[in-house]
Structure formats: C-alpha cells, structure tokens
C-alpha cells in the first residue's frame, strides 16, 4: 500500500531534456521492506538525474525520435496502463506510475510486497491505486485555483510539508492535500471523538448550501448515410455546504422535468452515505427505454468542509443541441467550404458565447479568404491556418445559419505548421464552442426544496446551472472521418 518514492517533474523548454525535477520524496523505511519483499528482483530507487532521463525516454519525451530504438519502439513493448518499467543501471525499476498533465509529470513507485519477476498483475498490487490517488491528489492541489507560475511555485514549496502530513511514511493518509494544509492551520481546534479524518475542523457562521450543475455536451457529427452521429452529456454536480456541527446530515436531490433525459453512469463522492440501487444500476450500457429511472436522485451525505463534486453523470439526450454539416472540397491550393448549423428548438437560445472553430491542418498559412455568412462574423487567423466563426449570443429566428467560402493557402513550412495525424487530405472538422447559463440539456435541476438539512438553522440555498460544449466536432462529410464503434453500430440498428 505504500509508496517508495514520489516525483514531480515540470516540462520547461530551455532546461536539459526540457524537464526539471521540481519535487521528489523518498521513503527509506518502505525501501527497506521493498528490498526484503522483492528479493533478487529488487532495484533500488535511483537518484533524480538517472530517474528523470529514464522516465522521459519511456514516455517518449526525449527528442530522439529519429531512430528506431528497440527498447522503446519494439512492437512487443506494449503499455496499456500508465504504469511503466524503467531501465536503470542494468535493472528494471517497476512499477513506475506516471502521467503527464498540463506540462507536469507526476510519478511514483508503489511498493510491491512480493518478487517482481515475473511482474505480478497490477490489479493485485494495492499500492498502484494508492499511488494513482496520491498523484491525482497532488495534481488537484496544484491545479486548484492556480493562475500563474508564482502560485505554482508557492504550492510546490508547500508540498514537502503537506506530504509530511498526508504521507509521512509513504502510506497515503489523505489524498486531499488541501485538507492537510487546513489541518496544519486548524491545529488548535479541539476535536471531538467522532471527527472524520476528511474533515479537519467545523464551520462557524451562517448556514448555506450551494449546488451547481455543469453539463458538458460532446458530439461527433458526420452527415453521412452509413455513420450515425453521436452525442453525450456529462454532468458534474458541485456542492459547498457551510453548515455548523461536526457531522451535519444533508440530503440533496436532483430532479428532472417530465420530458427530461434520465441520468446514467452516476459516480458519487465518498461522503454520500447510501445509494438507491436504481441510481447504482442506471447505466448507459443498457438500451434506453421508458422504464429507465428518472429520479428524483437522492443523495444522503455528510458533507466535508470544502467544495466537493457530489456526483458525475452522463446522459443520452434525444437530439444534439446544434446539428450541422461541414463540407470541404480541396481544389489545388484552395479549399471550398460550406457549413450549416441548426439550433434545436428545444434548446435555450441564449448563449454566453457561441463560436465555430475551423482549423486547416497540414497546410500552409491562409493567404486569401472569400466567404459569405448568413449570420455572425468570421475571423481569419492566417498564420494558424484557421477560421473562427463568431456566432454570438443568439441564433436567428430561423434557428439555422450558413457559411460558405473559399480559402487559399500559401506554401507549407514545416517548422511553423503543426502536424496532425488525423486531418490528412480531406479529413477535417469544425469544432463548436458554446456556453449557455442557467440551463441544462437533460433538464436536471436542484431547487431549494430538494435540499434537506438536518442541522440547526435553516440554510440559505443557492443553485446554479450551465451547459458547456466540449469536444463538439462536425466532420467534413465529403471525406473519410474517424469513427467510433458506436457510430457504426447505431446505423446498423437504425437501418
């Protein structure tokens, strides 16, 4: 369950290997056990320098892509999880849990309580999930309200103290590092016996509960006979409960209007004390029918102090909010494009913003554009070879808008233009970016009456909703496009 060592490595251009070890922590008592457990297969934790180099090599982050290197490029060297073996000093350091997120590499080496040769299956190693949770925790801590490098540095400087608190001997006590930070500051509070470990103090002040529902909608639209369009809603419900008492009991309910789309694949926060089996089993794997559980979705819980994600869900709404097609034809150095977008009538026509980004990959800079738009305006980013169609706050009454035009490109220069592996030739997409406030696509809402608080004082309850686009693609229907199995399967079902 313990970790032998943890690293944080930032990717910085201009440093050797473009990377710097920003933080590392070793656990010698765990190392002691590793030596006994691993026996002959034991490989000691290396110093930061050799570790960094070996990890970057394995993650393909060293710029030596030129030649085929068997230990990295061999077809049998297959990694299907974020767990790696690093070749260091003639031995293999395994398992190294590592991932790259926002220019930061998070890595740790969990203790394996047996011999490492052959590698035992990851599922049987308790330290793997603990390691992931530690790294996710550090990542959350670093990304929480972080705006610039100074703040990042401040947080990185806090890490040694925080890990001394949250992971003193390599066994993780709390993945929520913010909690550990608070516990350092809350040290003077006297605790009662049933104080949960995930709640370092108690709230004093006006009781209030805030619930916000954010739905992201993603879509893949093809406008083709043999490939079905797909779309999905992913919801996140975030809560902040400022309530007095050590363990206030709260029940939050999410409701749907009569024509709302059922919530599926619900994952809840560990503070939820019990779950209805209908919530547990409602899943996107099953075919949709009218018998699907449509709420209300009740979540009894004892809230932590900080803001937390009460639950995540997905949902399959009957139609995508914006349906469109994109046609692009290549003609020597120029392409002809036609775009049509239609907002569904059921969707609230009041955007915070709405834009269509039309990138052209693997081509030179844009030299000339001739276009016609029925609505909104078009911005041309010549060097980036992309167009942005700014649609604005509202679709026109017809709910339907068009763009057509011809784009001419200059010569391709390899240094500047980014290479894209998917958008080759006619394969191209446009991506929609929009946001609608006080609206959810599923109809899901939480109102004042949906919150029951079993604590002294009547809390003020505030609720928020918003819909955001995310990965909303419309592919060129005049060329091949990458498809998912679902798209193919749906067509077969429909035909």
């Amino acid at each position: 369950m313990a970790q032998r060592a943890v690293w944080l490595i930032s990717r910085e251009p201009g440093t050797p290997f473009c990377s710097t070890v920003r933080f590392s922590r070793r656990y010698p008592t765990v190392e002691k056990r590793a030596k006994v457990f691993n026996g002959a297969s034991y490989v000691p934790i290396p110093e930061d320098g050799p570790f960094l180099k070996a990890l970057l090599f394995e993650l393909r982050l060293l710029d030596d892509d030129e030649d085929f290197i068997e230990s990295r490029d061999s077809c049998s060297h297959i990694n299907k999880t974020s767990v790696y073996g690093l070749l260091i000093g003639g031995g293999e350091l395994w398992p190294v849990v590592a991932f790259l997120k926002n220019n930061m590499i998070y890595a740790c080496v969990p203790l394996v309580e047996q011999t490492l040769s052959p590698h035992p299956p990851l599922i049987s190693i308790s330290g793997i999930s603990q390691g992931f949770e530690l790294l996710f925790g550090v990542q959350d801590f670093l990304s929480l309200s972080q705006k610039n490098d100074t703040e990042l540095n401040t947080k990185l400087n806090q890490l040694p103290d925080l890990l001394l608190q949250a992971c003193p001997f390599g066994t993780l006590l709390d993945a929520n590092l913010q909690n550990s930070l608070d516990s350092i500051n809350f040290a003077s509070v006297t605790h009662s016996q049933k104080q949960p470990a995930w709640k370092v103090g108690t709230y004093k002040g006006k009781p209030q509960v805030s619930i916000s529902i954010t739905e992201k909608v993603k879509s893949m639209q093809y406008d083709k006979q043999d490939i079905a369009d797909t779309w999905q809603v992913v919801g996140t419900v975030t809560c902040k409960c400022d309530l007095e008492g050590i363990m206030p009991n709260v029940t939050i309910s999410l409701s749907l209007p009569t024509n709302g789309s059922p919530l599926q694949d619900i994952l809840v926060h560990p503070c939820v004390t019990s779950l209805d089996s209908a919530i547990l089993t409602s899943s996107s794997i099953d075919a949709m029918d009218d018998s699907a559980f449509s709420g209300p979705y009740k979540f009894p819980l004892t809230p932590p102090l900080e803001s937390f994600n009460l639950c995540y869900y997905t949902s399959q709404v009957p139609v995508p909010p914006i349906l469109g097609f994109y046609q692009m034809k290549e003609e020597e150095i120029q392409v002809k494009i036609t775009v049509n977008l239609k907002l569904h009538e059921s969707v609230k026509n009041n955007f915070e913003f709405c834009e269509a980004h039309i990138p052209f990959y693997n081509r030179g800079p844009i030299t000339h554009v001739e276009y016609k738009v029925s609505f909104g305006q078009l911005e041309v980013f010549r060097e980036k070879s992309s167009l942005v169609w700014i649609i604005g706050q509202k679709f026109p009454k017809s709910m339907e808008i068009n763009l057509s035009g011809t784009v001419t490109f200059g010569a391709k220069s390899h240094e500047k233009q980014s290479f894209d592996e998917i958008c080759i030739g006619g394969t191209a997409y446009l991506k929609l970016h929009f946001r609608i406030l006080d609206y959810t696509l599923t109809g899901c809402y939480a109102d004042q009456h949906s919150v029951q608080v079993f604590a002294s004082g009547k809390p003020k309850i505030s609720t928020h909703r918003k819909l955001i686009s995310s990965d909303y693609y419309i592919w060129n229907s005049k060329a091949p496009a990458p498809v998912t199995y679902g798209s193919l399967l749906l067509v077969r079902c429909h035909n």
Partner: protein
Amino acid sequence: MGPLSRETWAQRLAAFRASPSAFMAGPEGEDLGRDLLSELRSDKLSEQTKVSLLALSLEYPAQLWPDATAAEAAATSLLDTLVLLPPRPSALRRPLLLAATTALVAGDALGPTSEASRRLLPLLLGLASGRDLGRGFGPASEQRPLQATACECLRELESCKPGLLGGCLGLLRGLLGQEGPVQPLSLLLALALRNTLVIQARARARAGLQGLLMAGDTPSGGDPWNWALAEEGDARLQPQAPSWPAAEEECGLAVLEPTPEEARELRAAVAQLLDTSYLLTPVAQAQLLWLLGWALRGLRGQTPVLFKPQLVRLLGTAQLTLLHAVLALKAAFGEALFTAQDEALLLRRLTVAAQHPALPLPAHLFHLHCLLSFPENWPLGPTGEEAAPLLLGPRLCRGLLPSLLHDPMALLARLHLLCLLCAEDEEKEEKGQDWSPRHYLEELLAGLRQRAALDGGPRASATLCFQASYLVVQCLATQPTVLTPLTHGLARLYRARPVLAPHFVDLLDRVGPELGEPLRVALRQEVVSRPGRDEALRWHLQILAEVADGNAQSATLGFLGAAAAHCTDWGLQQALLRVCRALLRAGVGGGLADLLQALARQWEDPDGRDHARLYYILLAHLAGPKLGVALGPSPAAPALASSLVAENQGFAAVLMVQEAPAPIRLSVGPHRAAGPGPVLQLHVEVLEPAYSLELRFRVEGQVYAPLGAVHVPCLCPGRPCRPLLLPLQPRRPAPTRLDVRALYTTPTGLTCHAHLPPLPVNFADLFLPFPQAPEGDKLGFFEELWDSCLPKGAESRLWCPLGPQGLEALVSRHLEPFVVVAQPPTSYHIAIRLPPDSRLLLRLEAAQEDGVPVALRTDDWAVLPLAGDYLRGLSAAV
C-alpha cells in the same frame, strides 16, 4: 565546523539533493549527518530550516548514518532534542518523532537491545494513548496531532517488525472505543491484528487471541512489546496486502481455528473497525479493507458478511482506491461475499468507470486492466492471463472499443479487448454482417497503417501501428480472416514508407509463423519487384536480409545484381552483403556465386570487395551445414549489436580450430598377437558428442614408423564404440609412448583440437608369434631358432619369480600364443617374433615352487634388458 547560516544550509541541502552519492563522496559528505544533528539544537536556525533538515533525514537516513551504531546514536540524539524542546508550540515535535522512527528502522537498529528503541517505543505508545507526558511534550493543542503521529510511527514500526504490537491489541481497541483519533488508531489496530493472526497461524501457536483482544486499557505489567512475536514475524515480512495468486499458497490462515469465544471477539473487533470506517479518508478506507479482507480470509468460522454493508456505498463512488479495494475483497472471498448478481453489478460499475468521461485517462486504463484481470467467481480460462470475464458480453464492451481518436495507451488497451471479443466471436460470426467486431478491427488497423504511412509523421504513430498489429497477432493468430488483410495491409504500408523497415524487421522477429511467413513472402515480393535503385535501397536491403531465403532466388539475385551498381558507399555495400550472407545461410548456390564474384570485381571499396570474395570462398569451399554455422549467429559474441563485429567473431570461432580440454578418453585394450604386424587395440569414450573425430599419433623417439590417423565419424557418450585398431610399424623392437591429439567437431559446429594424455606402448605389445611350426617337429623348429641366434645375438639366464598360481597359469596368461613346445606344468619353449626382424626365445624348465629359471636367447642384444625387465615383471602383473 561552526554553526551554519540558513542560506548555507539551503545551499548544502540543494547540493545534496542534486546527487546524494556525489555529495557524500565529496569533502562535506562525512560531516553532514553529525552537523545536521547538532544544528537541530542550535538557537540560530529557524524552525522552518530545522524542519527541512529533518525532512532530509527522513529521506536519506542510510546516507547520513550508514550503520546501526550511527543510526542508534542519531535516534538517541533526535530523542534528546525532542525532550529538550521548550514547552511551547513547536513544528519540530512531529518531524522529530518521524525522524527518530525512520533512523531506527532504516539503520537496522530497532530491537530489544537498542537503548533508543527502548526510549522511543514507550514514548510513542504513551503519546498514542493520549496520556499526559508532562510539559516537555508540548501544549494541549499539540496533543491531538502528536497522538496521530505517534500512531503512524507505531504503524510503520509494526509494518517493518510485524508482531511488535501483538501485545497492544486490547489497548488499541480500548483507545478506538474512547476518544482517540479514529483513522490512525483504526489503521494501526487493523495492521497489528492482521499481523498477529498471520504470525500465529504460521507458528501454529496461539497465545490466546481472545486475551490479546480483551486486554485492558493499559498493558498489564512489564513490556507491551512483543519482541518474541516480532522475531517470528521478522523471519519473513508480512505483505500487508498480498498479491492474489501468491496469497493462495502463502496466507494459510485456515490452520488457525479460533475458539467460538475468540471468533466472537475477533468479529467484534472487525465490526468495530468497519462501523467507523466511513470516518476515514477514502484512501485509508481502502487500506483498511485490504488489511481486514486478507486478515479474515480463510479464517475458519469467519464469514465475510461483515463487509457487505459497506459494499453498496463503495461501489457508488468514483474513487480508484475504493473500487480497487472492493476488487481485492472479491478476490479474497469470491462467492462467499459476492453472488452472481453482485458480480454482474461490480462488472457493470467497472465498465462504467473504465470509460466515464469524468474520470482521468490513467484511471480509465487502470479500470480497463482490472476488467481484463477481473477476479471471477468461476473463472474459465487459465489464471494469470488477461481475458474478458464471462459476464462481460459484447453489449457491455461497446463503449470500450478503440477508435483512432484515442490516446495510444487507451487504444492499445481497448484494442486488446476488441481482439478478445473477436476471438470469442470467431464461431458465432455471421456472413454478410457489415459491422462485426472483426470488420471494425480491420478498419481500425487500416486507419493506423494510414497514419503510420504519412510522410514525416512521428515515429510514435508508426510504433503504435506495429504494436497494434503485434497485439492482434498475439490474440488472433489462428484466424486467417484477420491475418490475410493484415499481411496485405502491412505490405502496402511498406510500399508507401520503406523507412519503416526497422519496425518490420522487429515485427518479423517477434511474431510467430502465422503472420511471419506470409509477411516475409509479401515483403520479399514487394522489394524484389522494384528496380533496386531508388533512394530507399538501404531499407530494401535491410528487409531482404531479414526475409531472403531459398525461395524466389532468381528474382532476389536479379534485384541484388541491379542494386549492386548503386551501392556506392560502404554502408550500402555492407547491407547488400548482409543479404548475401542470408542467402548463403539459406543454401542458395550457383547464382549467388556469380553475384559474389561480380561484386568482388566490381566494387571499389576494398572492404566490400574483400567481404564479397570471402563469401565467395566460403561458398565454394564449405559444405552446407558448416557454412550455416559459419554464418549463423556467433556463439562467441551473441550480445554484440554490430553485425560486422559479430560476423568477424563468428568467423574466427567457426573457421578456426578451438583449443579445448579433451572430452575424450583413450585406453589400450588387450593385446592381439596375430597378423603380420603388431596392432594396438584402442578404446575410445567421450563425455559429449563428437563428430568427425580424427586421432593423430606421434611416436616418441621415432622408434616406429610414423602412424596414420584414425577417423571416427561420430561418437556419443554412453554408446559403445567398436575398438579402433592402430597398426604399429616398429623400426626397433622397443616400447615407447604415443603422443595423441584429437580433432573433432562439436554439436554446435565448432572444430576443436585437444591434446590427450600420452598412450604407452609396452614391450609385450610388440610380440608376435612365429608362423606355424611344422607339425610333429616343433622341438626341432625351436632348436633351429635357438641355435640361429648366436653368435650374432646374446644369451642370458635369469630367474623368473612365480606367484602362488604357478608356471602354468603364468604362461597361459601371458605367453600362450608364443609357446612352441609345452610340457606342462614344468617346461615350455617359447619363440617370440619382434618386428621388424628380431626374435626372442625362452626356455622355461624345471620350475620350482617359487620361480622358474629361464634361459633366453635373442638375435638382437638390445632386446636383452627389455626381456629381462619383462620377465621379472610378469609375476607382479598377474
């Protein structure tokens, strides 16, 4: 060294962290540990700096205090520092406790005889119990965090010395029931309980589990430390969460049969821990479940239903650790805790978690791994291999199939699942169904190849394409419907981008014949059908060196012939020669000889020319098998990456004769006195197979004519070989020694040379009988010989001692073939022919009890002393 400023320490620590080994080897290394301890008591440094010093000691105790004595001294010093702290709030108390614990454990100093251990343990237990330890241990506000820290220190000590806290179970339970901090105490109790159970089970001794669990708040008298139990545990560290397959054999808790009272108490303790588990952080809950799950597993009389109330709550969460812990319970208890419906629900939740958009990619991948290694109640397949669980039908998998838009790792993980589905689907597949998983697989692979074929694309996409192909072959090697399009697709990919040749070679080296053979044919076809002069020639030659064999010889040779003219630089020439090598090995003859000759004439580079000539000579002079060995992988240097070096070493090994210790034993068999000349009968034994054995003999002193070599085609250990006959042609009738050398080929094809021990040829080995004497006048014949010896020769008389068996036995044993006239048991006339042309005549008459007088004559005086020695030695030789 005097006190250092904060800045100096910061620099020093940074230098140390950059490379601890380099720092410790430097001038400051030696003092660091000592300085650090003394600076902790300095008034000049801020607490923050001191905490950073302690942080260093937490990470690198082995470097700072490398042996047990130093570690013990360091721990003592740290404890002294702790006691001396003024009674106001301080940030140093926690790290000092952690540092003292770490120093003792990492330095191997923890033990009943260690003074520091004897101070630390009661201190920790006192703090953990929330006892008032006096003003020195800080203000009341610090008690709670110190109590938690002390629990953590105790947990680490128990982890490293399992059983140490075996005597504190009752105390810990009591604390947990009162006001103690829930999480640290729960984890500590769970670990101590588990370790006690396991150690007792292993030792097959039970020191009253109930007593341990029931013991009062304070350990009754004496030490609570169970060093004895810890010593037992120390023999083998206890995995806190053993890996599953290993646990099957290792846990062995079944032998522990608690009494009903004990079982009840145990159940109460576990229930107590589980009931308050929701107060723990999710990661700590997971640890608790792993510990308790494996503690109770297999323990007779303990049903796992205690865990049931926790499961629904845990299954609903998005926490990786909690789901993982549930899977661990599943593995530990199987059907006893999870019905078939529960199993199905768990699988569904896992499937959801493996693709939920709200979870990060690493979590998806881990869940997918868990899905393919799912601990089923009734697994069908072999354990240890990834497989789709039975209940995971195509419907559940639909969202988990790969697409080109996925990240490489996700794509490979999902591709594996798709392959497993295709493998299952093999029989069921309907004809004409458009989008079966197999069709989808084909489309996906085609997409990957298309991406890999892009000019200037990153190597990662090529690697991904080949990894995917490899994975498909691994899973679906038996399905021609998959392999045929794959082969063609790969061949097209090569046509589009020959620069990927190293990937192709790598793939061919790793896949079995199912894909390997057709792909070789396709690639060879792809290469040889080209004109052989494009810029990708280097890659074509690399591919050909891999795929060239005896097939399509003329096309291959034609391509090489055309390519030769374009091989203007050394590298290309070597690449072409590598192909020739492959052809030589495959036994291609005629056309290749012409090509090699042409190369040897045509090329300007001397190295290329020489190699071509060498290959030509090899081809012309070595028989097929030998050629194969000569050009095969070098036994001398298998690890060398450079083919040229390997080649040269291989040649040296194969074409040169190796000096070797003899695996052959040679001995002289019984004497055969017949035929025109003396013949040695040799017996050969070998310790390992030897082929084409040639034995060469050299006569010491040249007393015989040079001897011919003896050949044996094949010798195997344990298989008797018929005696070898070695005819001797003495120039003088004298004994000698033969110097023997053996030349043979080993099973690995090396030619070896060995020097064998010299082989003695005795005087008697030269004896030959005279041609048959005329019947009836044997005596006359003898007398004639006897008389003819003189005057040229010599005469002697000597006494031949007889052993207990008497004269008759002696003659029959040694001289029988040479007897001319016999009057047993007292008188024998013996005539011996000694090649080249000497004779030795003996009269043995009037034998007495202990000897016989011998009159001897010879026509060669030089034989006389030899005959004397021979006769005197006869009785001893019996």
